[in-house]
């Protein structure tokens, strides 16, 4: 048993060490872009961002209901509570089109990020 505990503790320490070793790259003045969600529609529906750079996406949900920002092409998902703003870091992206949706209202809440 003791060797078991030691091993699991070792694994936990290892995980933590990795989390810290990858030390946060001090936010090097990221490019910030805004999306607004109102009446389950994203504004703007098409957002142009620079390719090859990390971007800070700020999504403001003006609806009273929660929404989940989801994009398989960006490999991102985040729940945004009603009447609140969320920050999502994206990229660096290769040039191209990256569609996203509000998963809870997929019919109306959709848009695309264009990296150039």
């Amino acid at each position: 048993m003791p060797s078991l505990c030691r091993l699991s503790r070792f694994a936990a320490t290892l995980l933590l060490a990795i989390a810290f070793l990858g030390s946060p790259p001090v936010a090097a003045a990221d490019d910030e872009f805004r999306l607004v969600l109102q009446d389950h529609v994203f504004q703007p529906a098409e957002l142009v961002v620079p390719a090859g750079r990390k971007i800070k996406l700020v999504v403001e949900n003006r609806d009273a209901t929660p929404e989940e920002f989801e994009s398989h092409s960006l490999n991102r998902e985040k729940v945004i509570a009603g009447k609140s703003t969320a920050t999502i870091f994206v990229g660096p992206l290769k040039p191209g089109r990256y569609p996203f949706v509000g998963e809870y209202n997929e019919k109306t809440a959709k848009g695309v990020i264009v990296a150039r």
Partner: protein
Amino acid sequence: MFATAIIVFREVLEAALLVGIVAAATRGVPGRGPWLAAGIALGLAGAAAVALGTGRIAEMASGVGQELFNAAVLGIAVVMLGWHNLWMSAHGAALAADARGLGRAISDGRRECSVLLIVVGLAVLREGSETVLFLYGIAASEGGASLPMLTGGLGGIAAGVAVGWLLYAGLLRIPLRWFFTATGVLVLFLAAGMASQAARFLIQADVLPGLATPVWDTSALLPQTSVAGMLLHSLVGYDARPAGMQILFYVLVLVTIAIGMKRVGRAAGPAARSRGAS
């Protein structure tokens, strides 16, 4: 109604598959049933609490509280699943013998059961809170819970639970000789997949660098939105566009737990055999 069912199904599926695997993997552990039920119940309660506090969690850590929370929950689950596999490497032989009716009861099953409770509880909490938020969203926007939406939601939950149960029932059909090896491998990949997801949340929060994003793109070949992609994502952590850091986490957890299992298994092996012979 159908759209509601599908979204709820997607959220429930991941937790249901995990519960199915963990329930099978702990077969024969004394007192497992009530612990499993308690884990699900606590997870549901936690899901409601997390759903209520979504706004507050999100605001923490300058807007990336949700990512850190998810990564922490996943990290704990990874450690617990790893612990479970090490425990099984030491006790699997005894449990298999017990199931064959050789009557060699496990005396120290309680700690394993509390691990079971935490793993199941966390999985239900994470996926459940998103389901609660989604259902609340429709209920609020349509001015009250409509019947089709309620039916859709319940249908989605039922379908998800059914898939988890099918996996459980299917696993139980594996011959005992290979049973714990099979569930051990499943849990191993489950843990590695969760580690990769945790890494993705930490990248999204800008706590970790992505290290080449994405390393590959198989979304045309096997999209994550397809049924196969979804199942593989839940079971072995398949990601159509993984970041380098995710792969690093995945491999590291996989190798660490596998080495641990081998070492514990080797240490427990001779002892278990000699006890079996006596």
